[in-house]
């Protein structure tokens, strides 16, 4: 294959879903003290690395740029990406970004991607299927709309050839094949690959890779258009759901199936 690719992978640092997660502060934003690279973004990074490696990797001029937006902790998502094999890291950070909703996030990311595309244009923007915290899945589609690009979401396979991509998507009642011209925004599912673990060599190599820090001024975004002020949605109240409490627990003594049906009947669920 002759073509080389310049791929941007959007990576997000999210609270670890293994533990309790909390909304804090005036805008009810997520507490990110104990954050990690979103598990779902590792699939996007792996997909990018495989596309690059199939074309000779970094030596042949392929670029895999991990881009993360967020406060200082977001740089950890970039570092992990570099350890996995991304060639460059970019951390978009600015105090004015705090509290950005999907619309404001997509505005800032679109500007950052345009900025990174000056000189050599970007061929592909890859994301995970959702963040494991916000869970809205809005950003990839909004990014595509802002950049005027095709979006291919929930790809469970992805090939790129001659400036076109082909992807497979699986829905409940059908599977479909989708084609689009590059550049495009693609989100991938956890079915597309098995992400690698960073190995010792990767961890050492990552230390030598540079992380570029960008501010809103660098990418030409007015701070009034992002953050709480620039968001189009606002959270007015948040309440922690009372934890579910255990109900009746029985041990099967040969009649538990019947007792299950008794319970359903009592709840008027039959």
């Amino acid at each position: 294959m002759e073509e080389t690719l310049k791929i941007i992978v959007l990576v997000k640092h999210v609270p670890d879903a293994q533990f309790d997660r909390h909304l804090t502060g005036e805008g009810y934003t997520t507490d990110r003290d104990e954050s990690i690279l979103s598990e779902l973004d590792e699939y996007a990074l792996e997909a990018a690395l495989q596309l690059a490696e199939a074309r000779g990797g970094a030596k042949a001029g392929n670029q895999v740029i991990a881009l993360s937006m967020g406060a200082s902790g977001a740089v950890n998502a970039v570092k992990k990406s570099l350890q996995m094999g991304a060639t460059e890291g970019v951390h978009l950070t600015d105090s004015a970004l705090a509290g950005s909703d999907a619309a404001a996030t997509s505005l800032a990311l679109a500007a950052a991607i345009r900025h990174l595309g000056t000189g050599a244009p970007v061929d592909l923007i890859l994301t995970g299927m959702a963040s494991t915290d916000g869970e809205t899945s809005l950003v990839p589609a909004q990014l595509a709309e802002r950049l005027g690009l095709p979006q291919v979401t929930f790809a469970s396979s992805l090939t790129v050839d001659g400036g076109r991509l082909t992807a497979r998507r699986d829905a409940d009642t059908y599977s479909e094949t989708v084609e689009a011209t590059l550049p495009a925004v693609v989100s991938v599912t956890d079915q597309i690959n098995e992400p690698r673990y960073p190995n010792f060599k990767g961890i050492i190599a990552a230390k030598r890779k540079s992380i570029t820090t960008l501010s809103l001024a660098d990418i030409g975004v007015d701070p009034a258009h992002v953050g709480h002020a620039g968001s189009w949605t606002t959270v007015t109240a948040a309440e922690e759901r009372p934890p579910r409490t255990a109900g009746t627990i029985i041990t099967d003594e040969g009649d538990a199936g019947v007792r299950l049906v008794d319970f359903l009947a009592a709840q008027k669920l039959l």
Partner: protein
Amino acid sequence: MANVLVFIDNPGDALKKSTLELLTLGRSLGETAVALNGDLHQDVSATLAEYGVTAVFRPSAQDLDDYLVSAKAAYLAAAAGAASAGTVLLDNSPEGKEIAARLGIRLNAGVITDVVAVDADGTAHKSVLAGSYTTSARTTTAVSVLTVKANNVTPGPASVVSAPETSTIEVPADGTATAARITAREQKAASGRPDLSDARIVVAGGRGVDGDFGPVEQLADALGAAVGASRAATDAGWISHDAQVGQTGRTVSPQLYISAGISGAIQQKAGMQTAKIIVAVNKDAESPIFEIADFGIIGDLFDVLPQATQEIKKRKG
């Protein structure tokens, strides 16, 4: 009153329950128009009138289904303009959310997903962080785009039947120019079971089914339920990935969730803990699922599920 636009995508010959819910919710917020994609069957027309719909828009193009999302978003943006809509309501399906996402950018409108209720003043309610919080949210824009989860509104017809006028909306060319094109589609074999996302009852199996979903499927069929699965079961290849409930699969909020042979770790809980009633069957008394189950059975699913299936069949006669 404000104007509401409801998007209905390819309804076929009857409106789904979740669509009737959107129409009922829309009517509580204002005059409701419908932007339809696909054929307009006469039975669907009649239902729209029963639900008090004031206008029906149809696209000038018949090929919106050939493109991913952006063509429908472009059509809907034009329809929202024609309807002077202050609120646009869509399904909370993955496609519904993506159409909403692009529509929001086109209309400079805030988008709120996973909505379960909307107040008269436009405040939307939803749960976040896998159901551990409930939040109230508003848009700060002239137009609001909301995707609404199924099974949260009781659908009901309007007190007065309407006589909606149908008109055609010109689909903007830029909706298809940059769109990904669907080049092939294979239908999967229909299970005949309800859709997992909207199902009133879900019966789900996990590692404990050990490759045999038979008892889970038979109980589901006796209850008219959808079949779900934990990630362990889908990763093992025992059932299609589409059935996965959890953090990386589907989030469901049915009236009843029966969990069989699933430990109930956080990844699974994230997808089902907003179910109204949870029933758990597991051999391991220490399984975390018992901490959140309304009715838990410590026992072998291969004994309990078939017995329950028999009993339901007996009682239903």
